[in-house]
């Protein structure tokens, strides 16, 4: 098995399409981080001088009536008004989790999924799968070796990149003398870990689907359809938000989320609203989301292994 794993890892390393996708997994988060760092940079002295000049009348008004400008002490007027003029937002790690942090997880997940599907799809598309099976005829082992390589590579790339992302932002915040509350960095790294686990599982799912459909195009089509239309179809069918794909992703990555439910009419008509059935917002936990995608992954994986073991290989 070790030999087979080494072979599959080499096959993955030598695939240019996979390398490009993994390179994009390095470049895109780096670009997002660079843009964020640039946008939250402290204003330069020139910027401050220019802002001070433009804001001079308002600073004067503030010093007359500080309360109208949201400050209690007239000494704070200049800082307050100049801050508005420079439009500078300081880097806040906690706030970025639900903003650029989500974007990084989404991009990394998409890229490792594409890497997983193109890795398997190439074997079918080129017909080289049959040649591989002439050397290792135990199909279950072949599937497992490929799957393990996709899973581990996806996790390592996602984890390294997202951890680097948060550590880089933390270091920048420290270098700017910004106060980072205790535990925020740990929360961000946990967020990165959950995102990486989800990304690796998604890559494994994409791989399993490609081994099932024997086509990258079919897999991408199905996944695109689910992402694009999944929630819309569920909504049209009147299915609870609890089962929406994106809600469950959110529950995993954010360690729980809330979803809206339509409550019975009597909650509004029968006096005071009491009892859990009248709560319009319900909790969807990390465990709920993990079970949702775990069952899906298990289903796709089982179907993929069984068909790969039984079907004729072209």
């Amino acid at each position, binding site marked *: 098995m070790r030999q*087979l794993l*080494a072979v599959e890892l080499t096959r993955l390393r030598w695939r240019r399409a996979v390398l490009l996708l993994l390179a994009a997994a390095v470049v895109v988060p780096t670009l997002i981080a660079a843009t964020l760092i640039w946008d939250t940079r402290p204003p330069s002295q020139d910027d401050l001088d220019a802002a001070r000049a433009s804001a001079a009348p308002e600073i004067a008004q503030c010093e007359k009536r500080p309360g109208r400008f949201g400050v209690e002490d007239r000494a704070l007027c200049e800082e307050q008004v100049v801050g508005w003029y420079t439009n500078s937002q300081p880097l806040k790690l906690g706030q970025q989790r639900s903003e650029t942090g989500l974007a990084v997880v989404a991009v990394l997940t998409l890229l490792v999924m594409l890497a997983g599907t193109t890795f398997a799809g190439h074997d079918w598309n080129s017909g080289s799968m049959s040649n591989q099976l002439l050397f290792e005829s135990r199909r279950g082992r072949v599937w497992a070796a490929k799957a393990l390589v996709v899973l581990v590579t996806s996790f390592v790339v996602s984890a390294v990149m997202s951890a680097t992302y948060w550590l880089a932002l933390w270091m920048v915040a420290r270098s700017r003398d910004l106060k980072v509350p205790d535990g925020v960095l740990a929360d961000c790294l946990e967020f990165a870990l959950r995102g990486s686990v989800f990304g690796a599982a998604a890559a494994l799912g994409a791989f399993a689907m490609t081994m099932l459909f024997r086509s990258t195009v079919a897999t991408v089509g199905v996944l695109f359809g689910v992402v694009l239309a999944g929630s819309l179809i569920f909504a049209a069918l009147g299915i609870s938000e609890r089962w929406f794909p994106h809600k469950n992703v959110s529950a995993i990555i954010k360690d729980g989320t809330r979803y809206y439910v339509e409550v019975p009419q009597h909650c509004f008509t029968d006096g005071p609203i009491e009892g859990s059935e009248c709560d319009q917002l319900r909790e969807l936990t990390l465990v709920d989301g993990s079970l949702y995608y775990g069952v899906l992954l298990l289903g796709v994986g089982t179907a993929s292994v069984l068909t790969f073991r039984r079907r004729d290989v072209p």
Partner: protein
Amino acid sequence: MSDLVIETTGLRKEFRSRRGGLRVAVNDLDLAVPRGGVHGFLGPNGSGKTTTIRMLLGLARASKGSMELFGHPVPSALPQVIDRIGAVVESPKFSPNFSGHQNLTLLARSIGVPKARVDAAVETVGLTGRDRDRFKSYSLGMKQRLAIAATLLKDPELLILDEPTNGLDPAGIREIRDTIRDLGERGVTVLLSSHILAEVQQVCTSATIIGNGRMLASGPVDELLQGGPASMRVDVPDPTAAHRVLDGAGFVVTTPADGASLLVESDDPSRVTQVLGEAGIWLSALTPVRRDLESVFLELTEADTLGHTLGHEATGATR
């Protein structure tokens, strides 16, 4: 220990079309390939040769019947024997963006074969110098050579080659033929599926001919060539008159396309000479015609096709 390297019993493969139709690709095939030597596996296009090979190698599942390789049942015991088998099935299939060397290296590593064997295999098939080029840039002949190189990585006891000279130039065909013959002489059992019957006749010690998924004939090549009516080529100054005389004497006579001679079915040259001499027709040459594998193949497969067609018509009529 069985002396048969390959043995199938009642092997059948059915394909279902999307419309629910059933096509039988291999029908109750009993194939027996003895240890050692080169065994030809012949049949027209669509006769089930490749499907049979794919079933033997575990790439396709049999609908019915049993198969054994080296006495082990397959596909269940295939992992135990696959390291002793080298195979080229249909067109060579490798990763197009990897070089030939990379493709071979990956296959070699998967079975723990040292890198030196890759270089040796590349050299054996004459790909040295081009092995670092991408597979997709190879000509069909080079792809075939690479596929044969892949089979040599295992140092196999059984080599299954499905149309191995497809796309090769005459020199390449000769090289591969020599390689196959050499392997056969070294004790490797070779199952050679090919359409080039002259090639098969030159290198094979035994052969199996199949048609419509069924076995039509099997045995040593010499025995296959012995069957059927003997014939001789008769050269005379007036073939038309000679044709009439021989017809009258009860011989089966045909005129080849060139029209300059006659083909007479008979194993008695003195009788032919006597009949023509009594009619005042003097022979300029009388040459025995030896059957070749091509004529045997055509006789068997054409008869089978006719039988198959008539069988279908009869079935249709009873319906």
